[in-house]
């Protein structure tokens, strides 16, 4: 191996990178910004409380008082059907039921925080009963619709809509710009609205089969229930796909390099990955983080899909979030139209 050749190749690669401000920012600047933001977000301090629910039946008031006074637990007293729904949606990590034989702790141990919730509740109950307590029984939540896998599948559909919609449009548009294809189209009588609408239409249609495939996979392989309206589910997928392709289009409207679009996509997608309610319920979040999560389209796609798949949701039940998603897509598309550059 000739060292001078290796040296020159390395030098060229370094210079090529260093002279591209976009590449430098998205490689060094963006991760540093993320480190600062996440550093502030996860400052050492009191950990957030673990949400649990007590099924509201006669005779549970003492239990409620006990759990409420325990450290690190936040407790709600909920009617039986609402309590089941809260567990299914991941809004609470554990349900406490009370019968003549004592407390029963119900959770899906595969859910994040479920085991922590169980240990904290058990400790609270032990501490409350001097001289011991009757046996605390644990039940595994295994009813279709309330398991973690049931929670996860709609989230994965949402995440797929996000990734396919944004990357499919954003990356390809910038590649077309880099390869001069957009310049070439610009010198034809094609209007930017025609181009963008056509491109969005093509990519939005592409995300539908992917989403349906994940849904069918969940239903047939994991017995994930489908209790709501097929039309509503289809519209969530179509409108969710449209919204994310619109956002992808907006990200790509002015980016000149692959590095820039890669960085922009990560900047937009990463918070949604973390806070969008795919892997854990963002309804348990509090403060500004909750507000940020509520502003994310992925939150509403996931929530609406869960409502339609797991809770018999109809079009009437989900029209509001669907309208909001449609509006978000329209705003993104409108901005992309204004900002879009061919070259």
């Amino acid at each position, binding site marked *: 191996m000739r060292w001078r050749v290796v040296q020159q190749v390395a030098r060229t690669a370094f210079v090529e990178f260093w002279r591209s401000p976009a590449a430098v920012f998205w490689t060094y600047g963006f991760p540093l910004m993320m480190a600062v933001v996440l550093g502030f977000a996860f400052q050492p301090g009191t950990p957030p409380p673990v949400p649990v629910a007590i099924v509201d039946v006669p005779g549970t008031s003492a239990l409620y008082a006990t759990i409420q006074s325990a450290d690190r637990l936040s407790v709600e007293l909920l009617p039986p059907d609402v309590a089941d729904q809260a567990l299914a949606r991941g809004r609470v990590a554990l349900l406490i039921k009370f019968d003549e034989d004592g407390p029963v702790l119900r959770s899906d141990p595969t859910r994040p925080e479920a085991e922590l919730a169980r240990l904290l509740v058990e400790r609270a109950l032990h501490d409350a009963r001097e001289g011991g307590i009757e046996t605390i029984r644990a039940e595994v939540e295994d009813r279709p619709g309330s398991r973690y896998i049931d929670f996860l599948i709609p989230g994965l559909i949402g995440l797929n809509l996000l990734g396919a919609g944004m990357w499919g449009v954003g990356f390809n548009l910038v590649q077309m710009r880099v*390869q*001069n*294809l957009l*310049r*070439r*189209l610009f*010198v*034809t*009588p*094609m209007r930017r609205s025609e181009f963008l609408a056509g491109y969005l239409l093509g990519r939005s249609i592409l995300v539908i089969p992917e989403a349906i495939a994940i849904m069918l996979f969940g239903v047939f392989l994991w017995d994930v229930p489908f209790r709501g309206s097929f039309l509503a589910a289809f519209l969530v997928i179509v409108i969710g796909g449209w919204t994310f392709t619109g956002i992808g289009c907006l990200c790509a409207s002015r980016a000149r390099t692959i590095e820039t679009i890669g960085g922009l996509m990560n900047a937009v997608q990463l918070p949604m990955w973390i806070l969008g309610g795919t892997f854990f319920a963002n309804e348990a979040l509090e403060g500004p983080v909750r507000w940020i999560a509520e502003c994310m389209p992925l939150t509403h796609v996931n929530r609406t899909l869960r409502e339609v798949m797991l809770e018999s949701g109809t079009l009437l039940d989900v029209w509001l979030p669907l309208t909001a998603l449609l509006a978000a897509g329209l705003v993104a598309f409108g901005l992309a139209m204004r900002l879009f550059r061919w070259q």
Partner: protein
Amino acid sequence: MSASASNSPAIELLGLRKVYTKGREETVAVDGLDLVVHRGEVFGLLGPNGAGKTTTVEICEGLTVPDAGEVRILGRQWRNKEDDAIRARIGVCLQETKFHENANVREVLTLFRSCFESGRSVDDALALVSLEEKQGARQKSLSGGQRQRLAVATALLGDPELLFLDEPTTGLDPQSRRQLWNVVGDYQKAGGTVLLTTHYMDEAQQLCDRVAIVDRGQVIAIGTPAELIRSLAAEHFVIVDSRQSPSDGDLLAVPEVVAVERQEQRLILTVESVHRTLPLLLQLFSACEFAIDGLSTRHATLEDVFVHLTGRRLREGEGA
């Protein structure tokens, strides 16, 4: 189209200027360029890389906004609510365009055809550039020449009145170049106008009715290739390879020798007529008892015109 627009020249450029700024560094790409291209002619912009040819063409195509000057394309102006009308009447072949890698030839043409209200059919365009047999082939399986013909075909789909070709044959093999020349020739015969940039002399001489030689953003000569070559003191060159040669004075004393250039052991004599000068030159070498290792003659080209005007070659670092 208004009467003034239909009777106007295909392209009128007046006092065109474009400066690119990067940081504190300014590069003048086009510096007060004036040009008129008439309808029905193939007009060549000839010049070295960086002369301002592509910037000029991109201003004409509406891709670049000039800092100063007037631009009229088929009697219309860009950014004057006439952009769509201009784009519907022009065809553009950029210096380099990569179409969708996984789209086949017919699909690419169908996409571009959809942009125009009227124009040629995809089949016609395929036939024009002889790509009928490749219509199902994807981009990645096309040769450089086929890709370039496809690019020209996309430019012809709107049946344009004016065709812009920016270095259309750069990097192509001789056969592919000739195929493209035929396409341009056929287009002109059908009444089309072409603005072509190139740094190939033979291409300009073969294709262009008129040529503008551009250097440092300005037109330094304009005319038919023959007129430009005739503007030289003489139109022929005699090239003699010899280790010893007569003095410049002796050579210039030979009738019709108008200039002498020396390149190591090579003499390049500019002469008015080869058949009268050559016997006299041979006699001179014989009288001096200098051996001739090689002898050739050639007609002057546009390259010689450029060298004569600027003292530099069109393609610095390459042979003539």
